[in-house]
């Protein structure tokens, strides 16, 4: 299956030449970003056309691109203040709810789907960005691949992406009555509430978190991957 990637990219470009799609081919795989308006149309074609034949939807997940590519400890220049700079960042996991970021970022939320064709033995990552106009709405793929049911519920639960047409869009992984979407990058790692048994009330109660955010290693970005030859022989998958 090592050589399918080029052919698949070509087929995709030919099939969807009239749509505004971005195809990326890398040794790691083929990915295809489509506008949200053509989400259902593209998915249906990918399942039904013989050239693609993606009969299985293996996975669907949300992605939050807030803080993508932002280090806590710049490494592009030398410093005399040392590592202690690194512990003051407000990167992933190092802030509480009141310290969260509040700016709006374009193209923040995406939905990524992993498709698999059993007959053609090929994979494809299909992506679309959710339009953010008050509500994140993406059409549901449930009529095309019924197996995405719980995966869409999960993306709704964790990221707050609403899948239009989903018959049963409830929370799935978080607690009953949970508030917020915990996998968003502006949701603190420590959470907002904690649970304990109240001796006086004789029942379990919720209270604001008492722990402090604590992440030891700062996020640093180094583009010195010179040692890595990304075009070197990959495994054949």
């Amino acid at each position: 299956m090592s050589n399918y990637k080029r052919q698949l990219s070509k087929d995709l470009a030919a099939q969807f030449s009239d749509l505004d799609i971005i195809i990326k081919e890398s040794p790691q795989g083929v990915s295809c970003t489509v506008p949200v308006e053509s989400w259902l149309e593209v998915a249906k074609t990918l399942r039904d056309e013989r050239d693609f034949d993606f009969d299985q939807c293996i996975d669907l997940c949300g992605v939050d691109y807030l803080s993508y590519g932002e280090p806590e400890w710049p490494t592009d220049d030398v410093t005399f203040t040392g590592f202690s700079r690194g512990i003051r960042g407000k990167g992933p996991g190092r802030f509480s709810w009141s310290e969260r970021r509040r700016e709006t970022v374009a193209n923040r939320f995406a939905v990524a789907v992993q498709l698999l064709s059993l007959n053609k033995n090929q994979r494809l990552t299909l992506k679309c960005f959710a339009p953010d106009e008050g509500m994140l709405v993406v059409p549901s793929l449930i009529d095309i691949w019924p197996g995405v049911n719980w995966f869409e519920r999960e993306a709704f639960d964790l990221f707050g992406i609403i899948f239009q047409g989903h018959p049963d869009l409830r929370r799935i992984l978080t607690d009953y009555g949970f508030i917020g979407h915990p996998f968003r990058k502006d949701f603190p790692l420590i959470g907002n509430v904690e649970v304990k048994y109240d001796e006086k009330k004789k029942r379990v109660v919720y209270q604001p978190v008492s722990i402090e955010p604590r992440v030891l290693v700062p996020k640093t970005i180094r583009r010195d991957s010179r040692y890595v030859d990304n075009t070197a022989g990959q495994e054949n998958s």
Partner: protein
Amino acid sequence: MAEIKNYTMNFGPQHPAAHGVLRLILEMDGEVITHADPHVGLLHRATEKLAETKPFNQSIGYMDRLDYVSMMCNEHAYVRAIEKLLGIEAPIRAQYIRTLFDEITRIRNHLMWIGTHGLDLGAMALFLYAFRERELCMDMYEAVSGARMHATYYRPGGVYRDLPEKMPKHKQSQWTKGEDLKQVNEWREGSLLDFIEAFANDFPSKIAEYRTLLEENRIWKQRTVGIGVVSPEQAKAWGFTGPMLRGSGVAWDLRKKQTYAAYDKVDFDVPVGVNGDCYDRYLVRMEEMSQSTRIIKQCVQWLKDNPGPVMADNHKVVPPKREAMKEDMESLIMHFKLFTEGYSVPAGEVYSAVEAPKGEFGVYMISDDSNKPFRVKLRAPGFAHLSAMNDMVKGHMLSDVVAVIGTMDIVFGEIDR
């Protein structure tokens, strides 16, 4: 006659047949299920979010705790995702060790599954026999990594260390002494590979024992034949993978189709079911254990014949040897950087999957050139399987729900993540 209406029943989360913390809301018409609504998430630990806050290597241990009965297979998917992004490859000996331990893991997982599945359906004795052999697999884990379950043995670039030359022996105790002690140490005189070989030679006879216990028991067949039938079309549509897909007659195995590690260099067959019921899936998994034994034997032979490195020689990713650090400043710096900051992975995204014992375990990883993954999505096979619960049990009796839960081989560590 009084009119009887449907009623709702709560199954779990504290129920021995719920395999963990599954809460099922069952709508019943008499003893027939009209609707099943599984509530999951009681074991949700936000592993994916935790991984975003740590350097890549620090999350390997979390992978063990996802599907906590097939630990090393989870590690394998995660480690391969990083290796693909970095564009490095493990040395061939490490690939064979990974293959060997993936298969030991498969046997471990299936032993756990057959034990509990049998227990749920009333076959008490089998559980004890299955756990006897599972204990030996735990000893293999312990010998190689120091931990019986959560090994953290696979690393980007290879495996943590080479296989030990000596298999640890049982010590004399109040309960094990004299002839007993000799018997439990019988296979442990040589290296770990000798121990694994002795196990692999003996194990087919054990599989035959399990099969005798179950297949010659009419209750077992009454409880599994024709229960939870899934057609190949349904299995594909619902995103089934692994034995759940193969039980329905679809010959799909990532080890063959999208091969990884050393699976293309060993000889094995992929068993496929016909009817797609619980009994066929049972047969598929039993045969998988025999095939795993075959793979293990081949790997043991190869590993005995071919010594070599088990870690890539790339100290930007892999820590240098301790001796080198004493003399070589460069090694000391690399060691310091690796353990304080970790390595940076080139920006990009990758989906890497392995054929875990339960099905396709995948890791979707996005990196932004930093020392922590930007997003990790863990694709657990059990999540897709359990989502089809309602369709699989509708119209069945209450007691069949237990058979269906068992046949799905559910573990909540991976479903709730």
